């Protein structure tokens, strides 16, 4: 199973876990990203490239499935305005053995950060600024090549 969703609505974590378990035998690894209130951020807005984003995420999911023999992958990414504490992204992987699930999960979130067309804008008390790409994120994605 490959499941890719890009949506403005909040998502149901337990429903996503259930889907992975239904396809999983062995181990399930997940990563959930939450909006941080860095230095007083009160709104985080996510913009994306409709259609292209979904294709990029599906490509990453397919690469991970082949590389780690996954039985299931879910990637859910929210777009639009969000508040601190809300979930931005969920990546879940299922595999027969734990190392495959854990590595694939780390791979997907690292690659997603540099290879999927999303852009973040932080607001602090009405002052908005576009988030710059972090060198650390580029390095994290590069270690998988």
């Amino acid at each position, binding site marked *: 199973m490959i499941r890719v969703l890009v949506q403005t609505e909040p998502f149901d974590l337990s429903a996503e876990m259930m889907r992975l378990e239904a396809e999983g035998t062995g181990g399930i690894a997940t990563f959930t990203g939450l909006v941080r209130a860095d230095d007083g951020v009160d709104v985080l807005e996510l913009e994306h*490239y409709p259609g292209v984003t979904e294709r990029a995420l599906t490509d990453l999911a397919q690469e991970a499935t082949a590389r780690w023999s996954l039985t299931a992958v879910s990637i859910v990414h929210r777009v639009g305005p969000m508040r601190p504490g809300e979930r931005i992204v969920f990546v879940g992987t299922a595999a027969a053995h734990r190392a495959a699930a854990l590595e694939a999960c780390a791979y997907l979130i690292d690659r997603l950060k540099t290879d*999927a*067309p999303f*852009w*973040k804008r932080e607001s602090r008390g009405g002052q908005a600024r*576009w988030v710059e790409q972090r060198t650390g994120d580029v390095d994290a994605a590069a270690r998988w090549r």
Partner: protein
Amino acid sequence: MKMVYFAWVRERVGTGAEEVAPPASVVTVADLLDWLAAHGGGHADAFGERERLRAAVDGAFVPLDSPLSGAAEVAIFPPVTGG
């Protein structure tokens, strides 16, 4: 040819999408940026620092020196920051 813009590139250009008809001398994405910037205004401002720009041609991420070769949609945007 359809142009699409995202994030601060969109804000500086002043629109998220537009139709353009570049001349035959515009071969690469970089040529296209030069030609659009020559119109002045938002485009010149948005495309000033090339190292801060990324592009996709028909949905595929490409370097700025890539040929357009009959592309239907060209996207210009800053480095991505999702996740």
